[in-house]
C-alpha cells in the first residue's frame, strides 16, 4: 500500500483524481503522522482534524459526482499561524492573541479552500514572524526533523518542519526577510517567496507591510509552482496586490531548461565567510547548472553589504507601527498592572504589552520606536530607505547581466536550539543572503542542494529573479533539482536521520 505521506503533492493529486486513493484517506494518513511525530517536532500549534476531514469528504464527493476540480484538489496543507483562518485559532505565535478565533479567512486561505485543499492546522512560528529560529514562539520551539536538538529555521520553522517531517505535503509560509527560504534551507525543503504583491496579503497579520510576502513551502519545485498558482493573483482586498496574471510558474517548473541562460553569482554573497560545506555545495550546484547549458557570470551588488543594517531599521520601524494596535484596548490580551487600584489606560497598555509580547518583539518594537523618534529619523530610517534604493539599483544592474542570481541561502546549517538565543546580532546574521530580495521586492527560492560535509545537515541554494519574473525561479530550480536527484538517487529528505525509526516511518 502506498504511503502517501511520502509522496509529492503532484503525485497525491494525481492519485486522488484517478481514483487510486481518496482525499479522506490521504488527509487521515497525514493526521496520523502528525499524531505520531508532532510531540517531538512541534510543528503545529493547532490541528483541525474535523475540519480537514470534512473538506476532504467534500472533495471526494465532488470527484464522485464527476466535477472537474483544480490541480491540487484533495491535497492537504498546513498554514502558518500568522495567516488568519475562519473558525480556527490564529495567534501569530504570540500570547497576546492566545485563543483568538478569526471571523474571516485570508484571501489565500479562501483560495486554498476553493481549490479543494483540506487545511490540517496552523503551524508554529516565531512570535509575529520575528526571528530566524522559531525559538521565539510563545508556545515553545519547533525542532528540526533532521536533528531534534537543532532549530528548524525561522520564522516559519513550523511550516518547513511539517513538510520535512512528512506531516503535511505542502504548507504556507510568510517571508519578510527570509522566513520561507531560510527554514527551507536548514530543513532540506523548497521554499519560495513570490514577487512582492504576487500573493495577496489580505488576512496576514502584518509584521512589516512593505516586506511581508506569503508563499509555498514544499518538498519539490513542481509542488511549489502548483501551490503558487493556486494562491497567487490579484486581489481587490489588498491595495498592494499586483494587478497581473500569475506568471507561468507551472509550465516553467515542467520545462526545467537552463540552456543558454545566464546565471549571475553575486560576488558579495558567493559563499565567502559561509560555512565551508555550504560554500562547497554552492560551487558544485553552480557547476551542475553549467553542465546543463547555463552560462555563469559574476555580478557585483556592493550595496548588499548594508542590506542587513537597513533591514533591521526598516522592519522594526514598520513593526512598531503595525503592532501598536495590540494595546489592550483594540485587540488581544488585557492585563492590569500589579498593585495599581485605578490604572490609567497607558498603564494598562504598558502592562499588557509587557505580559503579552516576548523578548524579541519588545526588542524590535523599542528599536523601531527609537529609529522613528524625533532627531533620529533622518539618520536611521531615512538613511535605511536610501540604502533600499541602492539595493534595488544593484539588482537592476545585475539583472541586465544575468537572467537569475544565485547565492547560498543561509550562512550555516541548522544550529543548536538555544545557541544564539541571547545573542540577537548573531541571530540576525542568518538572514544576510535572503534580506536583499525583500528590500527590493524581487522573488526568491531556496531548494536543498546537499548535506554539508562537516555536520551532514542540509544546505540551501537560493535563486533570485527580477520582479514579476517568478517563472525563472522555477525553471532554474527544477533543472537543478533534477540534476541533484539524479546524483542522490532520491529525495534528500530520505537521508534525514532523526526521522528514521520514528513511529509511523
Amino acid at each position: 500500500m502506498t504511503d502517501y505521506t511520502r509522496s509529492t503533492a503532484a503525485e497525491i493529486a494525481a492519485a486522488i483524481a484517478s481514483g487510486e486513493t481518496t482525499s479522506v484517506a490521504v488527509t487521515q494518513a497525514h493526521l496520523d503522522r502528525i499524531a505520531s511525530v508532532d510531540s517531538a517536532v512541534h510543528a503545529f500549534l493547532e490541528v483541525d482534524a474535523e475540519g480537514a476531514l470534512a473538506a476532504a469528504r467534500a472533495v471526494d464527493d465532488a470527484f464522485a459526482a464527476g466535477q472537474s476540480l483544480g490541480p491540487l484538489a484533495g491535497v492537504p496543507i498546513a498554514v502558518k499561524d500568522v495567516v488568519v483562518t475562519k473558525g480556527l485559532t490564529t495567534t501569530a505565535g504570540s500570547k497576546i492573541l492566545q485563543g483568538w478565533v478569526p471571523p474571516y479567512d485570508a484571501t489565500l486561505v479562501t483560495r486554498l479552500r476553493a481549490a479543494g485543499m483540506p487545511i490540517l492546522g496552523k503551524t508554529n512560528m516565531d512570535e509575529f514572524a520575528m526571528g530566524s529560529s522559531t525559538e521565539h514562539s510563545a508556545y515553545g520551539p519547533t525542532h528540526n526533523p533532521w536533528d531534534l536538538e537543532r532549530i528548524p529555521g525561522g520564522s516559519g520553522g513550523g511550516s518547513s518542519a511539517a513538510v520535512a517531517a512528512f506531516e503535511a505535503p505542502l504548507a504556507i509560509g510568510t517571508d519578510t526577510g527570509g522566513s520561507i527560504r531560510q527554514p527551507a534551507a536548514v530543513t532540506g525543503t523548497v521554499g519560495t517567496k513570490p514577487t512582492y504583491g504576487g500573493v495577496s496579503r489580505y488576512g496576514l497579520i502584518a509584521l512589516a507591510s512593505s516586506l511581508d510576502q506569503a508563499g509555498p513551502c514544499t518538498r519539490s519545485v513542481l509542488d511549489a509552482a502548483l501551490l503558487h498558482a493556486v494562491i497567487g493573483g490579484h486581489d481587490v482586498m489588498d491595495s498592494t496586490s499586483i494587478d497581473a496574471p500569475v506568471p507561468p510558474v507551472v509550465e516553467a517548473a515542467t520545462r526545467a531548461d537552463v540552456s543558454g541562460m545566464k546565471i549571475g553569482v553575486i560576488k558579495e554573497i558567493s559563499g565567502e565567510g559561509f560555512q565551508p560545506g555550504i560554500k562547497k555545495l554552492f560551487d558544485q550546484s553552480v557547476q551542475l547548472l553549467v553542465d546543463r547549458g547555463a552560462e555563469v557570470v559574476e555580478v557585483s551588488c556592493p550595496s548588499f553589504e548594508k542590506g542587513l543594517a537597513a533591514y533591521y531599521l526598516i522592519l522594526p520601524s514598520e513593526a512598531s507601527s503595525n503592532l501598536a494596535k495590540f494595546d489592550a484596548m483594540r485587540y488581544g490580551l488585557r492585563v492590569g498592572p500589579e498593585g495599581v487600584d485605578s490604572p490609567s489606560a497607558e498603564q494598562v497598555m504598558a502592562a499588557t504589552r509587557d505580559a503579552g509580547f516576548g523578548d524579541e518583539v519588545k526588542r524590535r518594537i523599542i528599536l523601531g520606536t527609537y529609529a522613528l523618534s524625533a532627531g533620529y529619523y533622518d539618520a536611521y530610517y531615512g538613511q535605511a530607505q536610501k540604502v533600499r534604493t541602492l539595493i534595488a539599483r544593484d539588482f537592476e544592474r545585475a539583472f541586465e547581466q544575468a537572467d537569475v542570481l544565485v547565492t547560498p541561502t543561509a550562512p550555516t546549517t541548522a544550529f543548536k536550539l538555544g545557541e544564539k538565543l541571547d545573542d540577537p546580532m548573531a541571530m540576525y546574521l542568518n538572514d544576510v543572503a535572503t534580506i536583499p530580495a525583500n528590500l527590493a521586492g524581487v522573488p526568491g527560492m531556496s531548494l536543498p542542494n546537499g548535506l554539508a560535509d562537516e555536520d551532514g545537515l542540509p544546505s540551501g541554494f537560493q535563486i533570485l529573479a527580477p520582479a514579476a519574473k517568478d517563472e525563472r525561479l522555477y525553471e532554474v530550480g527544477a533543472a537543478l533539482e533534477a540534476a541533484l536527484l539524479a546524483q542522490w538517487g532520491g529525495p534528500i529528505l530520505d537521508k534525514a536521520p532523526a526521522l528514521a525509526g520514528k513511529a509511523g516511518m
Partner: protein
Amino acid sequence: MSALSRDEVAHVAMLARIQLSDAELDKLAAQLDQIVGFVATVGEIAADDIPPMSHPLPLVNVTRADEVRPSLTADAALAAAPHAQAGRFAVPRILDEE
C-alpha cells in the same frame, strides 16, 4: 551617535507603551546598544542625492464603488470579543466621571 543608554531605552519603552522590569531593562539596553551600533552603519553610505525607497511597488490609492457588499454579521464580529453587551463591544471605563 550609536551609544544608547539605559535611560534612553526606558524612555523609548515608555513611548512604545511597554513596561519593563529592571532586569529586562538591563538586558535589553545592552543588546539594543549593540544593535543600534550595527544599524547605524547605514550612515556610512553617502546617499545625499539618492531618493528614499519606502516601498517596492509604486503605490496608488485604490478606490471602489460605494456599494453594499456582504460583510461580517454583528454576531460574527462580536464572537471573539472578551465582553459584549446589547450587540456592542463592552470595554472598561478609562476616563473619570469628571
